[in-house]
């Protein structure tokens, strides 16, 4: 292993993670400095819906494709969305396994599992790029950041896929590219749309609290 690859797998990643965490902490402080907003009204709706129930329902909403018409009617979209995010988690996990627990990748099963997950996420990424660039509605919504983030993730999946076996016999370009991309990804995330997962718990918390208090969550339909 070259020194540069070692640096990329360790020091660079650690700095990038430290950066990400620092910026996120600042970001959360920034967010919490906005006033929380309140609800003085006595609860409405069915007696068994409460802010607490609303919050949990809201957080869990994404795991219940039947709960929203948008996911119910686009089940395939929801499934690919799920796999895509599992692919992101697997790729991040890989960036920690390779430097700190490479023994795990000696198992053919683990390698295959990671490759299936990340490979599928890559294919989904490609279809998403096509969807974003090809669809009239999606094009109208998209910013350069949307395209860049999606392409960045898809390319990152590709190199993560190649890096899963953690082999350098045919050169280390793929591993190097994967770790450099990971570091860039970690540093870029707080400034891009990819940081949505940071806001997700907050946004959903407040929406769930309000709609739970008002008896709208859990959603009722006939």
């Amino acid at each position, binding site marked *: 292993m070259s020194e540069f690859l070692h640096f990329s797998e360790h020091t660079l990643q650690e700095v990038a993670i430290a950066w990400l965490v620092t910026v996120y902490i600042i970001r959360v402080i920034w*967010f*919490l400095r*906005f*006033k*929380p*907003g*309140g*609800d*003085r*009204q*006595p609860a*409405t*709706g*069915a007696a068994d*819906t409460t802010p607490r129930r609303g919050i949990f329902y*809201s957080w869990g*909403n*994404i795991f219940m494709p039947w709960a*929203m*018409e*948008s*996911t119910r*009617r*686009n089940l395939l*979209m929801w499934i690919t*969305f799920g796999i895509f995010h599992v692919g992101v988690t697997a790729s991040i996990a890989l960036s920690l396994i390779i430097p700190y627990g490479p023994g795990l990748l000696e198992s053919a099963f683990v390698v295959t599992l990671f490759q299936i997950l990340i490979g599928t996420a890559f294919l989904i990424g490609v279809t998403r790029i096509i969807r974003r660039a090809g*669809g*009239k*509605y*999606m*094009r*109208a*919504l*998209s*910013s*350069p*950041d*949307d395209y*860049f983030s999606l392409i960045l993730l898809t390319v990152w999946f590709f190199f993560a896929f190649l890096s899963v076996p953690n082999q350098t016999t045919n050169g280390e370009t793929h591993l190097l590219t994967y770790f450099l991309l990971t570091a860039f990804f970690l540093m870029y995330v707080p*400034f*891009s*749309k990819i940081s*949505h997962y940071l*806001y*997700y718990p*907050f*946004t*959903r918390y*407040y*929406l*769930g609290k*309000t*709609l739970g208090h*008002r*008896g*709208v969550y859990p*959603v*009722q*339909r*006939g």
Partner: protein
Amino acid sequence: MSQKKERSQKAEKVIERMGQKLNRQIVGSLTACVHCGMCTESCHYVLANPGDPTYAPAYKADKIRKLFKRHYDWTGRVIPWWVKADSVWTEEDLEELKDTVFGKCTNCRRCTLNCPMGVDYATFNRMARGLLVSVGVQPEGVAVVSKDQWELGNQMGVLKEDYLDTLEWMEEELQDELEDPSVAIPVDKSDCTVMYAINPREVKYDPRSIADAAKIFHAAGESWTMPSEGWDQTNFGLFSGDDALGGSVARRLYEKVIELNASRLVISECGHGYRSTRCEGPNWAAFDIPFEMESSVLTMLRYIREGRIKVDKSRNTQLVTFHDSCNNARSCGLFEEPRELLNLVCENFQEMYPNRAENYCCTGGGGAMSMSEYTPNRLKSGVVKADQLKETGAEVVVTSCHNCVDGLSDVIRHYELGIEVTQLVNLVANALVIEEKIVVPVEEVVPVEEVVPVEEVVPVEEVVPVEEVVPVEEVPVEVAVEEVPVEVAGGEVPEVVSADAMSLAGRVIVVADDEPDQVEFLATVLEDHGATIYRAATGDEALELARREKPDLLTLDLHMPGRDVGEVFEMLREDPELEELKVCVITGRPELRKLIYDRSVRPPEGYLDKPVDEERLLLNVRKILELAD
């Protein structure tokens, strides 16, 4: 050399005030959108305008989001083009934003419930409306209605005397209907259980719903009152985004409840009124509510559950469907109670799909009915609602919202669906079983044959003054004995003849409408009740007939060929010889109301939405003419 862009003062204020409005919910919604497009098809505007991405909720939201990103977020301040951050500079920019936030979204919240990220676009769309309103950039209708609510305390500019007069009129109608002079619509009565607040639309266009509610309170034996002021439960602050207006209107209502020492505020059926008064008002007004508040839907349901009123569902036999108001359902969780009530008072209820939290907007939400410049677009978006309605096969659509009544009526008319729109209060009142008053049969007291020779036709008052024989409270009020001589023949018990039958005798009425069927209907009903009728098919004909015949009343359609009806109306009003003329607008195009009501002449004495039924027509005509007397 690049020239530095100058920002207008208004644009500057919008940006500055945005900072004051931001809270965590809104910031969360402004930052969390990933432009996934999942919400796109949840919006009725999108469905009605296929291929036009400018209606997509996230696209519309970005018009507001770009400001936040440019001025309050990180990346957008440094590299705005990268995240599509942008600012507003000119009046045109603000006007464009106005057309999006007022003209392309009804704040129905359907997209909110369909966003995986929990982005609540409707909430920050309202915020953007408020920002624009604060610098005077708003649709004309919004300005007019807000002004009325600020100045007159209700959003339709109803004067106090007209309001009180309408309550009195409805009280009389109810006394006639129930044949019970003790029935009352109490005003400003202290220490009642219920203070009942209504929508000004009820006073202006649908007074029957006030009478229906009063009938229900009466039957339930409720201790109730209506306030003389602070009676408008609607709140245009919800639509205009003006929290100060919202707070002031809500406070007026709350303070009146406290002043009258009522223990519960009952809000008549109105989605935005319910949401504003029950949910948002306490926040806007920073008011901790020391009394209970509920929708009249819950009140009526409670009365039935508690056995305080009895209903007979066989009186409502038509196939009905139910439209969930967005504000009631998606913002206040009112889903099951209206359905339970509907099933108790109707025989045939057919659910509409989708429904409850997933129902589509009636198109009239977010104050859209007051923004006539967006009407064509609104009606176009109504195709979604029209399809939903058609699918049910229903004859009647029921809704618990006055705004939805108007929105649905417009859609139904535009798409020629021929469905009637009504509210739960009307159905409950119709199904209400009122304990029969014990009326002593006339023959038991004074056998007719003892008094009246069978073959002779004798006016009743010559035979026996009824009040001498039967205690007054046992005599049906409608037997206006002195006024209506009843011929008795063949020894039958005298038939009770309502005074209505004669009430239009001697009256001259001009019916102006370009639809021959409509003219025929109106003319026939009025002629059957004794009026002399002249028919006009254009504005000019109406003008000519009015000048020539000097009628007591002119019924005026707002859309007729020839001269502009608004102009005709103004000419009539300015004619000194027609000072006594009363006008009742009867229209199928409520958006044309502006033609008349925006003029600086005396407004019409009456207004009716088409389709008009006989009962409503007579009720209103009689009232107008009664006022004339």
